[in-house]
């Protein structure tokens, strides 16, 4: 009897210790995050909707679309294209086979123009353009526009862009490049933002267009509540696309630092900064940025909507 009770005692001790060990083990894993809201009524619109309906709460709608994963899904479809080189600076580089059958001599001339770049490249390109037509002429005109835009020569760039627009049968990805340059050359922020919207609509794989769109949304001085909602949408969508296209947190952080350098104190910048940090997993920092921005918001035209946007994001970040 004593033997049995002794063994019962030992076994129960070991079992108790084992239970404690198992409970400790399950405590270490983090609690499961709450499931994202299901994608519902928004799914009949494309992931890159540019026009918002005036009724309802547009901010909540945008956030719901992003949080339910609909935007991410659309972005994944774009990024899954094996032949896309999203870092390509022009459509011909991003997608293969858009302009084939060009002779070696002409390709050598194009290469010469790129070698010269700002130091005489435009003259060489004018020669090419004069003797070419179709997409070859388009490429020459676009290169003039790109070089001139980088060098700060708006007149030449706009003239070259106008000539490029005259070419017919330009593929959508290449139209995206024209819209992007038009946006960069535009002097009015709202006009520029509209160009960037059409650039990403024409080619969702255009990395540079998404960068400009997100930065434009973050630095815009919104005059109306509608403009504010549009800016929020641009920031949210383009950051999701950028994250999906690059899969690199250092690229997103580079964009964030670029926004700092631009140094416009538009309140949407906090949304951009916070959302980028949220997407790369730095939730605590994101929550801090959202909280600070909400405290600093005044009562202005845009601030109502922005407060709503920041509140929703803060809510999501703190939940997880």
């Amino acid at each position, binding site marked *: 009897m004593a033997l049995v009770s002794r063994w019962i005692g030992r076994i129960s001790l070991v079992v108790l210790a084992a239970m404690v060990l198992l409970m400790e083990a399950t405590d270490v894993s983090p609690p499961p995050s709450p499931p994202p809201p299901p994608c519902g009524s928004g799914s009949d619109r494309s992931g890159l909707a540019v026009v918002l309906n005036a009724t309802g709460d547009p901010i909540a709608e945008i956030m719901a679309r992003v949080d339910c994963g609909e935007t991410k899904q659309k972005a994944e479809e774009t990024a899954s294209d094996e032949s896309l*080189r999203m870092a390509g600076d022009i459509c011909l580089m991003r997608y293969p086979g858009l302009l084939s059958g060009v002779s070696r001599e002409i390709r*050598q001339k194009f290469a010469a123009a790129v070698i010269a770049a700002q130091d005489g490249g435009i003259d060489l390109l004018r*020669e090419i353009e004069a003797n070419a037509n179709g997409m070859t002429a388009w490429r020459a005109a676009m290169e003039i526009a790109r070089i001139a835009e980088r060098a700060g020569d708006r007149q030449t760039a706009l003239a070259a862009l106008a000539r490029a627009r005259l070419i017919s049968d330009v593929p959508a990805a290449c139209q995206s490049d024209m819209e992007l340059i038009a946006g960069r050359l535009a002097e009015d922020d709202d006009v520029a933002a509209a160009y960037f919207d059409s650039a990403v609509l024409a080619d969702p794989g255009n990395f540079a267009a998404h960068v400009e769109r997100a930065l434009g949304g973050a630095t815009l001085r919104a005059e109306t509540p509608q403009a504010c909602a549009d800016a929020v949408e641009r920031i949210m969508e383009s950051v999701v696309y950028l994250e999906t296209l690059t899969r690199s947190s250092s690229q997103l952080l580079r964009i964030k630092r670029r926004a700092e350098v631009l140094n416009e104190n538009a309140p949407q910048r906090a949304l951009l900064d916070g959302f980028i940090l949220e997407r790369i997993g730095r939730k605590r920092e994101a929550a801090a940025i959202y909280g600070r921005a909400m405290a600093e918001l005044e009562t202005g035209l845009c601030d109502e909507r922005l407060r709503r946007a920041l509140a929703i994001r803060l809510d999501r970040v703190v939940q997880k």
Partner: protein
Amino acid sequence: MSLRTDAEAGFVDIAANALSVLILVTIIVLIVSIVPSPRGEVRADNRPALPFPVEIDPSVQPFNSYWYVTEAGLTPIPLRQIAQSVFNGEKVIETVFGKFFFQNSRRTYRDVAEFRLGFVPDSKRIAEAAISISGEDEIERAVDQFSMEFEESYIVPTFFVEKSGFDIFARIHSAMRNADLPLRWVVRRPGVTLTIMRDANQFETRAATWR
């Protein structure tokens, strides 16, 4: 059990109890010593000691100017003439700086402007044409010029550095880093051709700030 004496039974008890205590202590030690997963973040707030290139616009590539660094100083390598020769159809271009070899893009190209331009420099003649930078003020003047080119024309210098030019380049490099100017540099090993190119492979990722 009935075959053992009382003393032996006692010892067996002690041993068995000691064993269970040992098991318990081991379990407790294991529980306590589970390394907690790091919460929060581990990151450095300060810039690292060896800074990386200056931040520039992530979506607009700057223009390039090419410089060759020897112990005699800096030699600018303007590409305008070479571009004109390539435009006229030449594939091998002999210049005062060395030989340039132009190679068109592959037959299956993406962009029409893809190319490879090989450069075999003639170090002696390059050194003869060098702008000497030995003194502090000369370095300052060079950095001012780079700064002006960057501010006004968005031009970023690329340096080809020869072994003999390392000392000079080190001073230029630190002066430019202090002035927060972007630059990039390549070590030129003897016998190796330097290649300037535009190719689809460069656009595989955006890991590089610019190419």
